[in-house]
Each structure stands twice: as structure tokens, then as C-alpha cells.
């Protein structure tokens, strides 16, 4: 490209300080017209902060922003919208009880006289969704929609405001692999129509698949800019983390022992009374990892909740070490050696408003050494916290910090520290690395394999095929509430698993 190319967007020397953190440290970044520019970085690298500055939500302490080569002041989202910048936030900014049409026009409503013109709003949804091939029903209420469709609504919102620059902040974190594919199609379509896209993620494969250019951030700084042609997963991971990262955790062959968890003919209903788990049986032995693969929403959540004592089953049994485990008695299970890394770490894994120290004794606070009779033993609780924070490398200002203040990866480390610091016979890990960056994923994977090697039985549920394939010793595939196949990990490849997950059959070799 020529020396004095006019960029759709350029930022120079952006500095943003938060109390105790230099979130953006003289950041330079530019976006060409019609390109997909991936912004890659670990959690806390400062990506969202930079985007919030561009979108007018934060004011930078230093630095300049240029749109189409002209210097601009962006004081509020209003200014950003006016300049043609649209942003799809990491946590969706949709009003759940509103319809798609209402969400679309909010803040820039079409009117007839005094009146809100909802007909025109619906029309706008139809027109835009047709024009960009983003199918969505204007009258659907947002909270009833799957996340993938909600995301389309967010994109439509930006397009309705005629965004020429679209920021997508970790759009794939909440999507299933199929939805990610659909999103990529949409992104390519948008760039063909002249939209320039900043695509934030920490998933290396996605970056290589979709980006035109890649900029990597680490600890508030831009480390460098490259292209998919020049980069590999390994090189990108090294740039992100600042050291060599093992993407595939090494593990020896399993040495299965006695059966620890046995599930027999389990049937579990979901909230709507539908049979989400419909007759499932399997067992997990000491020293092995059983992975449950499947597209999200095929009953994995309900299965795990029944096993971990959070939900009653309609029929069937769960045996833990040969003893029948009661449903909805999590404490019984915990005392019999079950550890649980829940799917939703913020809702079920932590009490967000509690300190890290208190979160670390959630399963054991009532027992010595953490309690004497009715009284808490504060000293033991704090000592425990100091030791675990160090051992599990939780990055936190202090053990008194509320869990809500930690990044996702560090929250997950708190959960892992708590669960692994008890004697564990069975580990149930549901989506243990969802939303985490490579460094944290590497860490969690190592710990899980370590757990297995110490003789625990591990039940791993994940929608990430790579994760299932790299960790599991055996793989069970779940489809529509049933386990359709259990195979040894070495004996299938990714496409065969994908086929099973979609309800297909393996051809007999």
C-alpha cells in the first residue's frame, strides 16, 4: 500500500489509565477500508478498552483518533454513531423484553408525528436483513432468541445507523461452531459492501481463518501487526502470551482403574418439561477422562446438573463409587469426593460479590479448620486463600478482592483452586475453558490432565471439538438427549465426530 493511504480508522498514541492499571499504553492501530482486521490478545490486554475509546464510552488520557484521514473528537457514543462507527459489545446491549424492531430503532426512532412508527421499524428490519442476508423476525422478542440471532440483531443495529466501521468485540465467545461459520459468512458479505471490520478475539484458529491483517496486543501495548499468510497458531500464541505456549497438552496413555461414576438410564427434564436427557448410561473410571462431545443444547447441561446434584432426574440412577447418589444434594456429592467446574462460572461457580478468600471455602466453610462450631475461623480461611492464590497463580490485587473484579481466566482459576484443593475422586468439568485465552486454557488443561494422572475420574463436557479431542481418553457423543456413540479417542477424527454430533452415523469401515 502507498505511504499516505487514507485509513477508515486510525488511532495514534492512545493512553488510558485506570486506577492501578495502564490499560492502553501508547497504542497505534489502523483499519483499512473493507478489511477485516483482527485484534488479538489475552484477557485484560486492553482490547475492549481501546474499542470503548473509539466508541466514545471512555475518554482517552492521551492520543488521537482519525476517521477517513480527518482528526475527530469522540466524546460519546452519539459522536461515534455520527461518524459511522458501530460496535457489537462483548456483552450484548439489547433490551431483552423488547422486540427485534424496537431494539433496532431505539435511540433513533422513526416517527409519525409524535408517535413511534413501529411499522417503519419492522420495515427497516426486513429491508436490512434482506439487503445483508441476515435473517431475523422483526416481531420476535429478543430474550426468546438464541445468542447467534441476538448477535445478528446487534449487527443490524449498527447497520441501521449506517455504520461503515464495525467493531465486533469477541463475537464468537458465545457462539456454537456452526454459528461462528455463519457469522464469518456475514462478515465477508459486509466487507464486500464496503464495511470495515475490527474483529476482536483470542481464538487463534478464527483469526487465521477470517482476518486480512492481525494486530496483537499484550498488557496494554501493541506487540505487532502481521497477516495470516505470515503467521501460525504457534507464532500468534507466542506474541499474545510473551512466551512459548503449549497448544496441545502432552499426556500419557490412561491407566483406568475402578469405576467411580456410573450413570444408568438417566432421564432428566429441562425447564419446559421436555426430556432433555433421554435414557443415558455410561461409566467413568479412575484415571481416565471421558469427554462428552455434542452441539450445545443436546442435553449436556441437564445431564451435568443431574450428576452434580443441581437438578432432579425423572428416572435412572447415578452411582458414585458404587453408592447411589441422591439428586439435589450437592453437599453429599462434595463430601463423597466430587469436584465440579460449572458451565456458567459467574452464576454457579462463584458468589461474585464475595471475596476471593470466601469463594475459596464455599464447599468447606462449615468444617474445621475453617469453622469452630458456629464460628468462622478467619485466620484459617485467609491462610488457605493466600496459599491457593499462590499455588494456582490467581492474578489479583488481594485475597479480599471480590470475585466479580477478576478476569474470566482468573475467576476460573479460583474455581479450579477451590475444587482441586479437596480430595477428588470425580471431576465434572463443563465447558471449563469457555471464553478463556490461550494461556489460561493451557493452564486448565494441564491441571485436568494432572488430576487424571493422580487417579481421579474426569467427566469433561465441551462444545469445542479440539478440546474434547486433545484431552479425552474416551469420547461419548450426545445428540438429542441420547448418547449416540462412545469411542476411543485415538480411533476417530474430527470430521467423524462432527458427523456424529450432527446426528449422522459412522460408516462401518
Amino acid at each position, binding site marked *: 500500500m502507498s505511504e499516505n493511504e487514507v485509513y477508515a480508522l486510525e488511532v495514534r498514541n492512545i493512553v488510558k489509565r485506570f486506577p492501578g492499571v495502564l490499560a492502553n499504553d501508547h497504542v497505534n492501530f489502523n483499519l483499512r477500508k473493507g478489511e477485516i482486521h483482527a485484534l488479538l490478545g489475552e484477557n485484560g490486554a486492553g482490547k475492549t478498552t481501546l474499542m470503548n475509546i473509539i466508541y466514545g464510552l471512555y475518554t482517552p488520557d492521551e492520543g488521537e483518533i482519525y476517521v477517513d484521514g480527518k482528526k475527530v473528537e469522540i466524546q460519546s457514543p452519539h459522536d461515534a454513531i455520527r461518524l459511522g462507527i458501530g460496535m457489537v459489545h462483548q456483552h450484548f*446491549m439489547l433490551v431483552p423484553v423488547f422486540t427485534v424492531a424496537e431494539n433496532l*430503532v431505539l*435511540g433513533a426512532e422513526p416517527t409519525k408525528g409524535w*408517535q413511534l412508527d413501529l411499522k417503519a421499524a419492522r420495515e427497516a428490519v426486513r429491508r436490512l436483513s434482506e439487503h445483508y442476508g441476515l435473517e431475523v423476525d422483526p416481531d420476535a422478542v429478543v430474550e426468546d432468541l438464541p445468542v447467534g440471532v441476538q448477535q445478528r440483531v446487534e449487527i443490524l443495529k449498527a447497520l441501521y445507523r449506517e455504520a461503515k466501521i464495525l467493531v465486533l468485540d469477541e463475537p464468537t465467545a458465545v457462539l456454537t461452531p456452526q454459528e461462528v461459520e455463519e457469522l464469518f459468512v456475514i462478515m465477508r458479505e459486509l466487507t464486500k459492501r464496503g464495511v470495515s471490520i475490527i474483529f476482536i478475539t483470542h481464538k487463534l484458529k478464527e483469526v487465521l481463518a477470517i482476518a486480512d491483517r492481525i494486530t496483537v496486543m499484550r498488557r496494554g501495548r501493541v506487540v505487532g501487526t502481521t497477516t495470516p499468510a505470515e503467521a501460525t497458531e504457534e507464532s500468534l500464541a507466542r506474541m499474545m502470551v510473551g512466551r512459548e505456549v503449549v497448544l496441545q497438552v502432552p499426556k500419557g496413555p490412561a491407566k483406568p482403574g475402578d469405576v467411580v461414576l456410573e450413570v444408568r438410564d438417566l432421564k432428566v427434564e429441562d425447564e419446559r418439561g421436555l426430556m432433555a436427557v433421554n435414557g443415558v448410561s455410561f461409566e467413568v473410571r479412575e484415571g481416565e477422562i471421558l469427554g462428552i462431545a455434542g452441539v450445545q443444547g443436546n442435553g449436556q447441561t441437564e445431564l451435568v446438573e443431574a450428576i452434580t446434584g443441581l437438578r432432579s432426574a425423572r428416572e435412572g440412577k447415578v452411582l458414585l463409587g458404587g453408592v447411589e447418589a441422591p439428586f439435589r444434594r450437592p453437599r453429599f456429592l462434595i463430601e463423597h469426593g466430587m469436584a465440579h467446574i460449572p458451565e456458567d462460572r459467574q452464576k454457579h461457580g462463584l458468589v461474585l460479590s464475595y471475596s476471593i478468600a470466601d469463594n475459596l471455602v464455599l464447599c468447606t466453610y462449615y468444617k474445621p479448620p475453617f469453622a469452630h462450631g458456629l464460628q468462622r475461623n478467619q485466620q484459617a480461611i485467609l491462610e488457605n486463600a493466600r496459599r491457593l492464590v499462590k499455588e494456582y497463580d490467581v492474578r489479583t490485587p488481594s485475597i479480599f478482592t471480590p470475585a466479580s473484579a477478576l478476569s474470566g481466566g482468573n475467576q476460573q482459576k479460583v474455581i479450579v483452586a477451590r475444587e482441586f484443593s479437596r480430595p477428588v475422586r470425580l471431576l465434572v468439568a463443563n465447558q471449563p475453558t469457555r471464553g478463556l485465552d490461550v494461556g489460561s486454557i493451557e493452564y486448565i488443561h494441564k491441571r485436568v490432565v494432572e488430576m487424571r494422572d493422580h487417579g481421579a475420574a474426569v467427566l469433561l463436557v465441551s462444545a469445542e471439538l479440539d478440546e474434547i479431542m486433545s484431552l479425552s481418553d474416551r469420547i461419548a457423543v450426545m445428540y438429542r438427549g441420547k448418547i449416540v456413540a462412545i469411542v476411543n479417542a485415538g480411533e476417530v477424527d474430527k470430521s467423524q465426530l462432527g458427523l456424529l454430533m450432527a446426528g449422522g452415523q459412522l460408516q462401518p469401515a
Partner: protein
Amino acid sequence: MSTPASYANPKLFWKRWGGLIVTTVLILAAIAYYYAREPHVTEAVLASTLRQSVPLVLGALCGLIGERSAVINIGIEGQMLLAAFIAFMVNVWTGNLLVAVLAGVFIGAVLGLLLAFMSVTLKIDQIIGGTVINILAIGLTGYFYQVGLSAKGKLNPIPLGPLAKIPLIGPVLFDNPPITYAAIILVFVVHYVLFYTPWGLRTRAVGEHPRAADTLGINVYLVRYVNVTIGGALAGLAGAYLSLEAVGSFDRLMTNGRGFVALAVMIFGKWTPLGSFGAALLFGFATALQTQLQFGGKINIPPQFIGMLPYLLTIIVLAGFVGKARPPAADGIPYEKEG
């Protein structure tokens, strides 16, 4: 709870409106039955039902436009009380009823602004903010109230020509004093604004997901200020109703818990103006019935028990019959801007 459903699907239509239609038919049948037997008592009870419901529905409108933008107002009682007092005093000084009403509305709005300042700008706990207003109103009215003041007049019924002559309906609906008419009109105005205008859409967005509204360039603080202040004006109108229209004078603590019952009315009405109107009529009916039973002298129950009727109804309704009412998601939570 936010938008009128589509009417295309008859099944949906009945699911949503069936209960309401059946209830209305039953109520109309009961009225017709009693009217045939005791026309004067029925007329009196119904007219009284409507008037008793006026402060409740105005209070509920105040509460709901605040809460739709996520500010809880438990100071309605105090807003009504101080407004009733000021309206009365202005009437005593000036003898001009219109000025008196406007003074009540103005004072209500000022107290609304005070609540908005405490809860939006200072981010004080909203329950405490509302309590401050209640205590302030009780203190001020108690201190400045002089026994024996009398005003020259009160707001009298204005019959609406031939409409007022229709049997039963005329005397009940078309022969009322001005604030009662105003209250009925305001129900529909607030309904229209809340569900059919951009302002209403923004208000509801701010109450459900203020950050989303903020990212779309909507001024969350401004929306809350305006709603809570207008809400205060509505509570002020309710106060003026009490001292200028219902009674014609001021008494210590004359609001008598109506500001709190109004909150129950709002919840029973699921944070909608029309629902609140229905709920207010129900509570108004309980009060009217209670009066009728006490002074009609036909049954032999101690008056204290009969007097409990409206409050009992409040408890029963709130404890059991509210159903799946869902308050605005951000209700009561101060909004913090970032960065």
C-alpha cells in the same frame, strides 16, 4: 409486558385478553343485577369507587413512570401529603382553585426533582431517598398546620351536559369534579406516551438495560430525571385532589397510606397504566363498599373490621394474586457511567 401483542392469532388473543373480557362481563352483569334491585345504592357505591380510585391511580402512575425508568419512588405518600397541604394553603390565601391545584402539582414536581437528585445524581439508596421525602412531608405539614383554617371553596362536579343524564352511567362517569376527569384522561395519556412514543420506548429501555440505552446515545440520567419529576407532579395532583376536591380542607396525615396503597396498585397493575387503573378501581371499590357497609347499617360487623377491607385487600393481592408480574430489570439500581 412491554408491547401490545399481535392480534392476528385468535388463540394468542384469548390467552392474553380472555381473562380480562370474562371478568369485565361478570362485573357488568353484577352491576346490572344490583342496579335493578337498588339503583341509588349502586349508583352511590360506583360513583364513590371512581372517586376513591383517583388518588390511587395518580399515585400509581407516578410510581410506574419512575420505575419504568428504574427509579423506585416510595415517597409518593409524602409528595401527596405536602402537595395536599400546599394546595390547601394556596387556596386559603388566594381563593383561586386553579392556582391552588397548580401549586400542589408544582410542589409534587419539586419533591420529584429532589428524589431524582438523591437517587440519580447522589446515588443514595432509593428506599432511603423516598423515606426522606415522607418524613420531610410529615414534619413540614405537622409543623406549619394550623387548626381552624378554612378555605372558601372546593372543586365541584361539572356535569357534562346530556351525557350526565344517562341513567347510572351519567352520574358515575359524567358528573365528576375536574381532577377526577383529569385522572382518567392521564391514564390514557401515560399509556400512550409509554407504549407509543419514542420517549416511552427510551424510558422502558432505561428501566430494563440502561447501559444498552447509553451505548445508543440515550441520556440515562436525563430520562430518569424527567420521569421522576413528572411522576412527582402526578402525585402532587393526587394531593390537590385530596384537599381541594375530595374533602375541601386539610387534615394532619390525611393521605392515610394512599401513597403506599398506590404502589400496591401499581404492582397489581403490572407497571402498566391501564392495569393500574383497573387495580385502583378494585381498591376504590373496597373503600366505597366499606363506607357503604359502615353507614348503610345493614350488617352487624364491628366497623373496625369493615374499615380494614382496603388494607386487607392490599395484603391479599400482593401476597398471592399478582401473578407473574415482572418489574423492570434495572429497577432501583443507580446507573454508573464508566471511564
